[in-house]
């Protein structure tokens, strides 16, 4: 049964299909916001198959094994992070105390892998993109961690199932942690390197950044890693702040789980929609402005939120 969970649902195959659906929604809604038509629904599939079928070149001075291992590690990290997120009930297939920390750690692996990818490319654009990626990590990682761990601070339980239990019994965390929600979404945009934070692979200045030397199947896996990270990150925020599968009223049994799962997908797409609106409305900002903005606005916002929570707990309200 656990093999089924790992490979079919909610493991590799269903995450693959959901992340392609996520990419389609991203591209279609962005296109409509820019008053264009946008690609048809099978476009991400077609891109993936096209990239897999092309020749994959490795630069002469680069280490072939490491070059190939990086995308595979990335996909593995994100799939492992995703199976710990509870999709249809308060418990994921493999729950344990502290799994929230493991999920956040695994979701920050792709940034380090992009750094290694750029470094091992032995290409000047890759080096610059890699250093920019790591510099950006300094900016948003601390607000991201604090924002995502604030539900754990409220409940005092460090596991996703405990947090979801609390949300089922009381209200969703977005009611008491609105600032954390906003900071989590903006930091997620930074982690995923979406506009306005897509400095590391800024195609218009350094043609591709860490992705410059990747082609063929390796590039297909890198793009897949980014799409999966988009879906997994949005799902994590939906689970922590919007109540996951929780809905008003109770339907028992299998039908209840299915309805909960579909609502979970809808909540994930709401988070995705907010990310898309941010992408469509802004330009790319410089790396020093990213760090400036994170340390000046994001970190204080989340710290103020945590102080308010600690104060309320101390006063006995929460």
């Amino acid at each position, binding site marked *: 049964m656990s093999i089924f969970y790992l490979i079919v649902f909610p493991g590799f195959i269903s995450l693959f299909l959901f992340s392609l659906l996520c990419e389609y929604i991203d591209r279609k809604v962005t296109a409509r916001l820019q*008053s264009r038509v946008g690609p048809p629904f099978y476009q991400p599939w077609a891109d993936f198959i096209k990239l897999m079928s092309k020749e994959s070149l490795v630069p002469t001075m680069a280490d072939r094994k490491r070059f190939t291992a990086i995308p595979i590690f990335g996909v593995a990290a994100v799939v492992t992070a995703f199976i710990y997120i509870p999709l249809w009930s308060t418990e994921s297939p493999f729950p344990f105390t502290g799994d929230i920390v493991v999920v956040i750690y695994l979701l920050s692996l792709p940034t380090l892998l992009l750094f290694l990818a750029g470094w091992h490319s032995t290409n000047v654009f890759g080096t610059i993109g890699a250093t920019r990626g790591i510099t950006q990590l300094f900016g948003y990682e601390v607000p991201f961690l604090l924002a995502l761990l604030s539900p754990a601070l409220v409940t005092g339980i460090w596991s996703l199932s405990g947090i979801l239990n609390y949300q089922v019994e009381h209200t969703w965390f977005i009611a008491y942690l609105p600032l954390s929600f906003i900071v989590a979404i903006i930091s997620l945009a930074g982690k995923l390197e979406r506009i306005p934070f897509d400095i590391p692979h800024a*195609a*218009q*200045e350094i043609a591709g950044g860490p992705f410059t030397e990747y082609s063929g199947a390796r590039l297909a896996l890198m793009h897949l890693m980014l799409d999966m990270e988009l879906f997994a990150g949005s799902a994590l925020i939906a689970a922590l702040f919007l109540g996951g599968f929780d809905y008003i009223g109770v339907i028992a049994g299998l039908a209840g789980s299915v309805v909960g799962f579909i609502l979970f997908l809808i909540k994930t797409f709401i988070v995705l929609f907010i990310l898309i609106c941010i992408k469509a409305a802004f330009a*790319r900002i410089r790396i020093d402005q990213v760090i400036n903005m994170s340390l000046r606005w994001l970190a204080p916002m989340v710290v103020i939120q945590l102080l308010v929570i600690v104060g309320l707990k101390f006063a006995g309200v929460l």
Partner: protein
Amino acid sequence: MEEREIAFLTIPFGPQHPASGHFHALLKVDGETVLGLEPHPGYLHRGFEKLMEYRVHPQNCVLVDRADVLDPFSCELGYANAIEKIAGLEIPQRGRYIRTIMAELGRILSHITWIGVLSMVLGFDSANKIAWGDREKILRLNEIATGGRLYPCYLCIGGVRRDISQEFVDETSKALDYLEGQLSFYDYFVFKNETFVMRMEKVGRMSAEEAIDLGATGPNLRACGIDYDVRKDEPYEAYPEVEFNVITREEGDAYARSLCRRDEIAESISIVRQLLKNLPDGSYRVELGPECITLEGESYFCLESARGEKCFHVVSDGSPCPYRVKIRAPSFLHTLTEFPYLAKGSTIADIPAIYWSLDSCPADMDR
């Protein structure tokens, strides 16, 4: 003090690049700071001025609009006026008005294309796509008046090649109303967008003396506070008969240049409206006749294209083909003197912002 050796990377800001158009430069970079920029022009050099020496004047008129692909009307206007100065021709009033209308529409087209490409280069995807859609309105006007969208082949020696129809006048009014609405959209979406302001403010700053030393013209010069516009200082065509303001700003940075161009779009819209209201009747073309094969003389004609001051120096020695044609292209100085000067000391992320705020067209630079 001991000497410190700085190890630097050389990055090609190459011709095959989404941000540079078709222009090759090498950046010397230390971390994110740019230590120097070496431009290598010539990727789009087609030998224009030499090729024009093998063709007769009417043939040159239809080919010269490829010398600046983003503002073709200015090239045709310049060449036609230079030849008319040698031949001593007087253009009828309707012809002059139509030429000015088309030149101003070309200026609006060039500035909207500039908004699109600047946004693309700053990573501002949405504004790029929307600006590209707005261009279509003016390209449709070009199609109605001249029969071609990008390369009009319309202004010729003696006037214009065909008359404008009532359909053109109606469509132009509708398009101008649409563009005014779009300008107020661009105001809050692009020019007052927080990320755009963050990228462009205080970047690539030129003082007035530096701008004159480096040979800047057009909006680049007017953004430093200097009031110089060929349309007002040496008027040509129908410009003496319209009222418009010359837009200047004080700061001299990339954001000031952007706002200058945005205001110039508004001024051009008002100029076209005035000209359409007062359009005279009469003939639109004066035939040149067989004396165009035996023109002898030399002339120098300056005009204000969307990029800056463009001048045509034509020498004709009595044979059918011109002896020498020299085009003073504004983008040549923007790219080769101003860009390396402003790029020194900035960061890599600022390079595309500075380059496109100077609005240089690589085809215009290389000819």
